[in-house]
């Protein structure tokens, strides 16, 4: 058996160019398959980072509808709630419309208490609390725009025009920088003072802003389902109906908005798989045909049909497993750089072990399938016929 294994290697080495090209196509294909699958699983895993003791209260009508500030004391009065903090999506951009990221007006103290996932790595929470125009930004933004502590950051508003007139930017000052301790937590958020937000708007024609979402922290032994039902019932008859959800459900809602994207990606994956399958089958059939004469010799020497079958199927397996492993490895290696590319859409891009096993199983399956036809043909060849072949 050891000799036959050497024969497998020798056969593969005989046509070096073909073996290398086939392996290279496999690397490319498996890299693509694993990356595509990881995009889908990471998209769906976004919800996993959520903490069960946090609830989100938002308008039941639309993502773009605000809730009255007057709702806050009513929600706080619900049993089982420890803390309520108001958030508003600011929806501006830095310099150009393509530089968009999440900006929120928040209550600084409460927010840092409710979100322990933000670890302050530069500046301090105190500095953020004290500076009225101060902002807390993620290290992802530092990386993207090169901002540092003390920098003035002008943000052009789309939803909340500055009272000084059209085209005026809101100016903020970097007071602290956080690093997310959780993988799926957005490293590109900018948080600023609700008071600054509200006081500035009150100088203009729009007046005091509404609340985008209330973030609720439950007491340790509260029943989330019960609390959610109570909050929803409070505003059943308006003026704005609310929908309270667990944090994971809130994030899942954003995922379902991607609609058919997972389906598109799977279809593309199917196309990749068919292309690579045909390529490998083709290469293996060619190899099998060229080895006809050798197979005759093997059989004449007394090797069984089973041995011959194994030699050919092992060649195919060997190529597919090497190519597959390299492709999967490449997908894993490129995880940080791809993760950075897609971070605005998908946080926490990860090539999971399940994807790697999926790739490995696919590689073995492909190897068996592509090797089957030539191996079957070889096993059934008559010794005389095979020896007579000129290949």
């Amino acid at each position, binding site marked *: 058996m050891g000799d036959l294994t050497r024969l497998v290697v020798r056969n593969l080495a005989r046509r070096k*160019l073909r073996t290398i090209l086939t392996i290279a196509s496999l690397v490319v294909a498996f890299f693509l398959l694993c990356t595509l699958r990881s995009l889908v699983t990471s998209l769906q895993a976004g919800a996993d980072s959520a903490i069960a003791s946090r609830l989100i209260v938002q308008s039941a009508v639309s993502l773009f509808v605000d809730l009255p500030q007057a709702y806050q004391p009513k929600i706080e009065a619900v049993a089982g709630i420890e803390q309520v903090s108001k958030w508003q999506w600011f929806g501006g951009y830095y310099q150009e419309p393509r530089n968009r990221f999440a900006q929120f007006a928040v209550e600084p103290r409460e927010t840092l208490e409710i979100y322990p996932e933000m670890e302050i790595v530069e500046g301090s929470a105190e500095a953020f609390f004290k500076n009225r125009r101060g902002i807390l930004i993620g290290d992802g933004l530092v990386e993207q725009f090169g901002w540092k502590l003390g920098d003035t950051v002008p943000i052009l508003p789309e939803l909340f*025009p500055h009272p000084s007139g059209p085209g005026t930017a809101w100016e903020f000052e970097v007071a602290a920088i956080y690093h997310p301790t959780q993988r799926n937590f957005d490293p590109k958020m900018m948080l600023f003072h609700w008071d600054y937000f509200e006081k500035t708007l009150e100088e203009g024609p729009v007046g005091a802003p509404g609340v985008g979402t209330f973030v609720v922290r439950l007491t340790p032994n509260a029943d989330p389902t019960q609390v959610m039902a109570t909050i929803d019932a409070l505003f059943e008859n308006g003026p704005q*109906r609310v929908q309270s959800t667990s944090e994971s459900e809130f994030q899942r809602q954003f995922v*379902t908005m991607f609609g058919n994207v997972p389906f598109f990606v799977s279809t*593309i994956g199917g196309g*990749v798989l068919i292309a690579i399958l045909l*390529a490998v089958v083709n290469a293996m059939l060619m190899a099998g045909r060229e080895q006809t004469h050798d197979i005759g010799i093997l059989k004449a020497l007394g090797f069984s049909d089973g041995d011959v079958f194994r030699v050919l199927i092992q060649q195919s397996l060997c190529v597919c497993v090497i190519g597959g492993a390299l492709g999967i490895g490449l997908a894993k290696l490129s995880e940080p750089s791809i993760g950075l590319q897609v971070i605005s859409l998908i946080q926490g891009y990860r090539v999971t072990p399940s994807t790697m096993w999926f790739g490995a199983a696919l590689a073995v399956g492909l190897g068996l399938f592509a090797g089957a036809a030539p191996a079957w043909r070889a096993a059934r060849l008559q010794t005389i016929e095979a020896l007579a072949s000129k290949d």
Partner: protein
Amino acid sequence: MQFIPLSYNLRSLLVRRGPTALTVLGIAATVATVAGVLALQQGFRALYAETGRPDLAVLLRPGATAEGVSSFTREGAQRLIKSTPEFAEGADGQPLAGMECFLAVRRARVEGGETNVPLRGVQPSTFALRGDEIRITEGRNLTPGADEVIVGRAITGRIKNCTLGDVLTINVTPFQVVGIFECDGPFESEIWGDFERMLAALGRFGPNRVVAKLRPGVDVKALDARLAASREVAATVKTERDYLSSQTEFLSKILRLLGSFLGVVMGIAAVFTATNTMMSAIGARTYEIGILSATGFRAFPIFVSFLFEAILLGLLGGIVGALLVLPLNGLKTGTTNFQTFTEVAFAFKITPTVLLTAIVFSLILGVLGGTLPAWRAARMRPTEALRRQ
């Protein structure tokens, strides 16, 4: 210089049917995948860019890039409509213009989950502006001032409570679905109701945008500059066509990027397959190549001949790939347009651009895959090649 007849290559491909078919199908799968993504982008772009009217002006608040983030006060919008001489007049002598309110509302999908559906409050003048663009195909149009809505054909089967006769609750107000409409543009994925009733149901006070018919020959850029600097009510102006095109940039860019990325990566694999096949073809035909050079064919014609064979392989793959994506034409699908944050339904569109890209792409694959084997064939020495029997 004497060239090898093309029929030689055609026959060779026929003789090696198995490898030829596998290679052609492999290239076809690659071409079809790339062409499919491109067809998606074309369909999405066509829905917006080709249906927007150049004779309609869309007015937004300065700084707003989409209607969802734009807003006017009611008085401001009314003043804009009355005091802009560039707007055409209707039969009644009034400016042909309408206020619209817009909100992406959360609705449940029929198949589960939630999505954002555009909800538009329109005035009677909106229908006058649109003419036969909006075609009611079931039921009737909404009555001004009534709690009634009409629903675009594209979402009737996809979103709950959106078939004729259903009751659709917006915040706390129930609306009756009285009609289903068709439209070639993105409106077909929307719910339309009466402007005043929608404002009341949503607890809002003013419109998001104003749409007006322009008098012939109006310079939109000049109008935009004048209104943007206006002290009374500032606004930015675009033609509807430009406005809709601007709403597709982001998703279009993503799809084009995805298409090119797949093209390059899958293309590499396809090139390797073509190279493998051609190397094997040349290996099996070494003796023939010996005869060719012995009978006086120079290296260059041999190179051209084998390169042509590879290009032929690629072209066949391209044709099969293009045929594979043809049935996608008109197939409806939907996704979220991240610029408006709403779901739009659109169809794959196989345009000449898609087909041309598929064919050119396959030819490139053939050339890249065939160069190395053809060069090897051309370099063979006749004496050695003839000895290989």
